C-alpha cells in the first residue's frame, strides 16, 4: 500500500515538472473554455431550442475527441518511459508486484486527468450566478467524465505497456480509445435490432448522455469498471512477459 501511494504520488507530480503536463493543462482549458463560450453564445440566440447547458457541455463530441487525444497523451509515457530509461528495473526489483505498479501508475495518470477538470468547476458556478442550475446532473456529469476518463486512461496504460516508444504508445492508445468510443456508434449502422441493443451498452456517448441528464445507471458503471480492470490486467501481463523474454 505504501509503495502504491509512493508510485501514485511520483506519477501524478511528474506531470507538473514536465512541459507536457502544462501543455495538456493549458490546451484543455483553451478548448473547454471555447466550447463553453460557444454554447453560451448559442443559447443566447432565440432560435436555439431550450436545453441544459452543462449537459451539452459534457456530451458534445468535439470535446470528447479532444479528450481522447489528451488521454492518449497523458498515458503514453506511463510505462514506456520507465522501460526505455531502464528505471523499470529498480521498480520491479523492489518488493512491489507488477499489478501494483500498473495500478499505481494508472491511478496517478487518472488523477491528473481529473485534475484537468478542476478549473472547469467555474462554469457551473458562473451559470448558477446568472441563472438556475440543477446541481444533480452536473455532479453525475462529472462522475461520467471521471469514469470514461478511467476507461480511456486504462486503454492508454495498456498501449504504453507494449512498446518503449512514446509516439507509438500514443498512437496505439488513441486507436484503442477511439475503438472503445466508436464501437457503440456502429450501432446506428447495423440492421439487426438485437445487435443494436447490445452495442448500445457499449456506446460511450450514450453513457455520457445518461450521466449528464442525472441518470446514474449501475450497468454503465459496471461496464466501465470491468473494462478498466481488463485493460490493467492486460498491462500487468505485458509487463510480466518481459521477465521471461
Amino acid at each position, binding site marked *: 500500500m*505504501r*509503495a502504491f*501511494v*509512493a*508510485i501514485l504520488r*511520483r506519477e501524478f507530480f*511528474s506531470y507538473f*515538472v*514536465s512541459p507536457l503536463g502544462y501543455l495538456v493543462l493549458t490546451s484543455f482549458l483553451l478548448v473547454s473554455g471555447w466550447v463553453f463560450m460557444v454554447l453560451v453564445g448559442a443559447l443566447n440566440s432565440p432560435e436555439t431550442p431550450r436545453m441544459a447547458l452543462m449537459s451539452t457541455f459534457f456530451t458534445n463530441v468535439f470535446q470528447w475527441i479532444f479528450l481522447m487525444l489528451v488521454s492518449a497523451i497523458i498515458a503514453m509515457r506511463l510505462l514506456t518511459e520507465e522501460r526505455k*530509461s*531502464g*528505471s523499470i*528495473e*529498480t*521498480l*520491479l*526489483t*523492489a*518488493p*512491489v*508486484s507488477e499489478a501494483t505498479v500498473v495500478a499505481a501508475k494508472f491511478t496517478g495518470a487518472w488523477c491528473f486527468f481529473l485534475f484537468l477538470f478542476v478549473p472547469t468547476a467555474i462554469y457551473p458556478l458562473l451559470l448558477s450566478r446568472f441563472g438556475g442550475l440543477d446541481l444533480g446532473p452536473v455532479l453525475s456529469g462529472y462522475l461520467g467524465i471521471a469514469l470514461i476518463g478511467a476507461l480511456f486512461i486504462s486503454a492508454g496504460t495498456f498501449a504504453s505497456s507494449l512498446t518503449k516508444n512514446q509516439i507509438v504508445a500514443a498512437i496505439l492508445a488513441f486507436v484503442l480509445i477511439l475503438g472503445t468510443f466508436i464501437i457503440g456508434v456502429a450501432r446506428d449502422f447495423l440492421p439487426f435490432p438485437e445487435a443494436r441493443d447490445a452495442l448500445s451498452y457499449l456506446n460511450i456517448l450514450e453513457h455520457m448522455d445518461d450521466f449528464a441528464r442525472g441518470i446514474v445507471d449501475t450497468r454503465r458503471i459496471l461496464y466501465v469498471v470491468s473494462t478498466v480492470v481488463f485493460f490493467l490486467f492486460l498491462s500487468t501481463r505485458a509487463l510480466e512477459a518481459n*521477465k*521471461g*523474454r
Partner: protein
Amino acid sequence: MLEVQGLSKSFYGTPAVTDVSFRVESGEILGFLGPNGAGKTTTMRMITGFLAPTAGRVTLADVDVARKPLLAKRALGYLPETLALYPEMRVREYVAFRAQLCGVPGRDVKARVDEALGKCFVDDVASKPIGNLSKGYRQRVGLAGALVHKPKVLVLDEPTVGLDPQQIVKVRALIRDLRKDHTILLSTHILPEVELVCDRILIIDKGRIVASGTPETLRHQMSQTPSVTVALKGEVPEADLVFRQLPGVAAASRIGAGGETRVTLDGVPGADLRESIFKESVTRGWTLLELSPREASLEDVFVRLVSRDAAAEPGLEPGVDPDAPTPAAGTGVPS
C-alpha cells in the same frame, strides 16, 4: 545469505548463462568478474527477480525469489548497470521514494534517508534535482537508493563505472565499509577493483563460471608454470645445467652479467622450487643473492581463462566453485 543453484538463461534459444552456482555468505563481498557480454548482468537480473531464469533457483536470505518474490526482494538492494533515476526528482525525494517503495514505515523514512545520504556522501546535494548532477554523484545517489531500506543483500552491477579516479577510491572504500551490514555481490570488469574490494572472486565467461576463489588462491591455483628467478654471485656458467637436474624443473635459462649470474627457472605445475634451489646452492658453495618466485598476476589468470574455451582446459570444471561448499554438500541453507 545469497545462494544460486544451477542458474541458466537462454534468450530465444541462445544460452546466455549456463548452470551457474555459487553462494555468498553474510558479511562477504563476492566479486563477479568477466569480460563484457559474459553474462554478469543477466545473472544479476535473475538474482534480483527482474528476469525469470530458464532453469535454476535463487535464494535470497533463505527465501526463494521465484516462489515468494515480494518477500525475497525485501532483503535486496540493487544497483542496476543502466543506472536510471528520475531526473526531475530531487535527491532527497528520490531516496525517500525508494524507501517507501521498499515499505519503510512513514515515520522512519526521514531518518533512513538522512543515514543513506550521509553514508554515500551525497548529503551536500540532497535538495538538487538529479538531472543536474554529475555521473559520479548520480551513481552514489543510486547506491543510496539501493541501501536506504537496509537490505541484507546488496547486488551492485558495475558500481564504479563512469566515475573519476577519486570517486572510484571513495566508492570502493564505501563498499568495503558496507560489508559490516550487508552481504555484497559486485560485478565488474576492472581487475584491480576485485583485488582491492572483494573477499572472493568468481570469473564468468560465455555464461559459465570458469574459476572461483580468493584473489590469492586464484593466482596460485592458476599459475600453471611456477617461475623462479635466481641470482648467484660471480660467473657460474654451469648453473642452468645444474638447476635443470633438480626435481620439478621444466626449463632453465641463464644470463651472466656484471659479476652475477641470473637464472630463470620454470617448474612443473604445483612445484615449489625454492627449497631445492637453496640446498643445491649451499652444497655447491654458491652465494645466493636473490631467490624470488614470479607469481602470475590476476590479469594473467583472467586473460588466460577468458580467452580459451572453458571445456578444453583440464582441471577446471565449469560451474564448480571450489571455495564455497557445493549445494549438495552445503551445510547451511536447507532446501
